[in-house]
């Protein structure tokens, strides 16, 4: 990383994508390293910037993964004359690696600057352009820009338009040497199909799809990526990965916390929009997709979209039989008594009278999904997500078919439980396979045991944060772990009719005590003989 100004800059910028390969780069990880670039964060005074983005950038610097000449520019309305110093404090507090390494931070801080301005004001973009041109000259960023829009969904289109009109974004070129401009967009990508389409339309009016990086941080998690390695990097599982051997699949995204003072936000979204439309459906696509032809972004995303298109729609009256929405009531979690969701609303109503005591917002959703494909026909995918559930856990449980013949049916200890494979996404990331084994001894007794792989135990606990991977990928132009426009629309295309049926039919909202595994009504979603796991 450059730590001082460039003395003279007549030469063209260095590039890793030269057509003639540099023989000295052979065998270096930098064969795929990003080119020198400036990362510009809109919403630089926000919580995400403080807690996640700048710590992620710092950790990339600590791992020497940032390109030389990297620059970071914050943009926000508030004046921040001490932006770099403020970010230093945040990194010290929120970085996964502590204590803060002064040398690395000082290097990074050389390239940190701040532009104060409102993105509704064209002069903000003029100031930003001047700053980026200064960085091009002094740090050799050469017109390469990664814009991170850490702003509300209503602001995205305005900023993109401002960037385009000010000439900070130009159409991508076929020339691999040409400077790049990419835009990372944070979720939510709309609140329904119509708004998602409108957002995509607004983005695509100014950007090429190849310049848009829609970020779902779940895809940056090691264990989510490992789903693909597990399935397609091993020979033994994929032959079992179909209706021939799998009885059903359970996907759980559970949190033990409630809405944590964000009642007004939650009243607008509910857990279906907050978790299911994006994270949970992303996991589903990775579990169910066909092998892609390569790790290329479009090859992977094509297969994910196919899964979403094979989801049998849930519409009209079926919504009530194949989904259950719920709301937590008062209960006990980890020994603490906690209030119910309606009580939380009630407590805030004096201050925020717009909150309705008749809220129908769901804090839990359970669904029975069906995929209309040769691989998955007849295999139920049970999906549940909830707040104030018994514990925080995200996992995929693959339940295999029962034994065709109970050879050990009457054997002591035999439970006739079929094998199951559990992929734990968080916490305690890992993979566990349950199978029967003979208890040592003269007789024949059977016991269920688990073969357990734990990421933390094998590789330590300091795995990179999702944002580190995703920011680096965006700089490298690797879009595999980002969501494509058609993917977002396919997700909303599936969710919209469910939301519509819940509102139009005044569907019931089942109560569940905080600290439980959700409403008992969700049991009715299960095919006879299946039960919800208690992770």
């Amino acid at each position, binding site marked *: 990383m450059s730590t*001082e100004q460039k003395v003279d800059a007549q*030469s063209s910028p260095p590039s890793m994508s030269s057509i003639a390969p540099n023989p000295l780069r052979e065998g270096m990880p930098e064969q795929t390293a990003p080119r020198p670039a400036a990362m510009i964060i809109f919403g630089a005074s926000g919580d995400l910037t403080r807690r996640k983005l700048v710590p992620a950038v710092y950790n990339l610097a600590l791992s020497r993964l940032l390109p030389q000449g990297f620059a970071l520019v914050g943009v926000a309305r508030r004046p921040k004359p001490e932006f770099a110093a403020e970010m230093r404090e945040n990194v010290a507090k929120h970085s996964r690696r502590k204590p803060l390494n002064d040398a690395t931070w000082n290097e990074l801080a050389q390239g940190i600057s701040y532009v104060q301005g409102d993105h509704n004001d064209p002069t903000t973009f003029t100031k930003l352009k001047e700053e980026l041109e200064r960085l091009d000259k002094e740090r050799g960023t050469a017109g390469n820009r990664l814009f991170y829009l850490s702003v509300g969904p209503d602001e995205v289109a305005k900023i993109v338009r401002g960037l385009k009109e000010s000439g900070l974004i130009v159409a991508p070129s076929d020339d691999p040497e040409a400077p790049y401009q990419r835009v990372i967009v944070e979720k939510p990508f709309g609140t329904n199909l119509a708004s998602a389409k409108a957002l995509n339309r607004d983005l695509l009016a100014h950007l090429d799809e190849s310049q848009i990086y829609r970020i779902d941080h779940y895809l940056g998690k090691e264990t989510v990526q490992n789903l693909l390695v597990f399935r397609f990097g091993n020979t033994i599982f994929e032959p079992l990965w179909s209706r021939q051997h799998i009885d059903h699949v359970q996907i759980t995204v559970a949190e033990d916390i409630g809405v944590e003072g964000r009642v007004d936000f939650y009243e607008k979204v509910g857990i279906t929009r907050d978790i299911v439309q994006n994270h949970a459906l992303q996991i589903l696509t990775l579990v169910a997709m066909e092998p892609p032809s390569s790790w290329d972004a479009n090859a992977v995303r094509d297969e994910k979209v196919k899964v979403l298109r094979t989801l049998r729609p849930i519409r009209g009256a079926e919504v009530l039989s194949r989904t259950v929405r719920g709301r937590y009531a008062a209960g006990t979690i980890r020994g603490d008594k906690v209030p119910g969701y309606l009580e939380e609303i009630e407590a805030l109503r004096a201050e925020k009278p717009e909150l309705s005591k008749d809220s129908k917002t769901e804090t839990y959703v359970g669904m029975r999904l069906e995929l209309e494909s040769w691989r998955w026909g007849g295999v139920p995918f049970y999906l549940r997500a909830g707040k104030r559930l018994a514990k925080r856990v995200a996992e995929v449980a693959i339940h295999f078919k029962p034994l065709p013949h109970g050879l050990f049916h009457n054997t002591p200890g035999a439970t006739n439980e079929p094998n199951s494979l559990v992929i734990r996404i968080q916490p305690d990331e890992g993979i566990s396979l349950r199978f029967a084994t003979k208890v040592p001894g003269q007789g024949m007794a059977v016991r269920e045991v688990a073969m357990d792989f734990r990421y933390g135990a094998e590789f330590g606990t300091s795995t990179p944060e999702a944002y580190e991977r995703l920011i680096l990928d965006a700089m490298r132009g690797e879009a595999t772990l980002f969501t494509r426009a058609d993917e977002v629309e396919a997700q909303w295309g599936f969710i919209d009719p469910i939301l519509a049926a819940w509102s139009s039919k005044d569907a019931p909202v089942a109560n569940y005590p905080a600290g439980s595994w959700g409403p008992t009504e969700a049991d009715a979603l299960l095919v006879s003989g299946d039960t919800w796991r208690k992770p």
Partner: protein
Amino acid sequence: MTPAGSGAVSEAVSRIEAELNAFWSAANEGDTPKARASTMNFVVIGAPAETDRLRDEIETLSQTRAGRAFLVMIDGHLAPWEVGSDVSAVCHKEGDTVVCYDRIELGFGAIAASRAASVLSALVLPEVPTIIEVALGAPSSLVDALVGSTDRLIVDTATLGVRKVAEIAHKTKAPIADRAFVRTFSWRDLIARFFDDAVVATKAVTRIRITRTSGGKHEPAAILLGWLFSRLGMRIESKETVVNANGDKVTIELAAEEPKDPLGPGEITAIHLTTWIDGVALELSCARLAEDRHAVCWKREGARTSAHHHALGFRDEAWVLLKCIDATEGDGVYREAVLAAADWSGR
């Protein structure tokens, strides 16, 4: 080898196996089962004087790449045919599970050392790779005995020298990683950067000058030179002269300066290259700054003109070791580099 000797070694192996079995078996019905963390077998061949440092290294490594670790040495206190051992384990709780990794220290008598490979093959976890590090003071008898048993070999040319490592490379097809080569990463990256937009100049280098502090045990510039020679297609004619890919003579110059805090002996302080683009000279230099020895001035003059200051960065030896284990993308490049370096060094 006498039968009695054979018995002593196999008894030692049986004793270790029994200790491991006892540890991994639940003592009582209902005991919390132990889960084994096993990404690899990590074997360090070292010298008794280095024991404490090597134990620390293993402990640090285990926190991010847990597995079965072996510390293997010649123990002068043992009878020639004896094998001494110490088995221990480190456990911690993760939720309801107790996760453990074990370590085995093996001391070989002088004669028993020739059986080290056989002992190791009996004790390694078979389903994960075996990575062997040749540490400072590693006895040749053990290195020679074990070098064929590894999936990856880690060396340090700063302590072994490039010629010794080249000898080892001829004895094994296993990939080799070199701590010294990893430590030069910033220098190599900065040199490569000279040519990112001037690839044609890689064939036309006519002068290489490396300055280093004096006093290193082995020539610190050797591995860098070997890397340049092999990557740039240069043919070695003598210690001072090689021929570039265009058939032109390349002058090799080595300069020394006195070690001075914060730099110890044998550290690179500057690299200068002369090359040509369309008949115009291009002078490239990367030299530590007088005011900050952990930063360099990177400069091009002539056919291209630009200059930056860069921090060289600092990574401790735990990081270097992890890179040696994980960064496999440069294995082929390194093998060619060390063979070229040994060739140059032997001239």
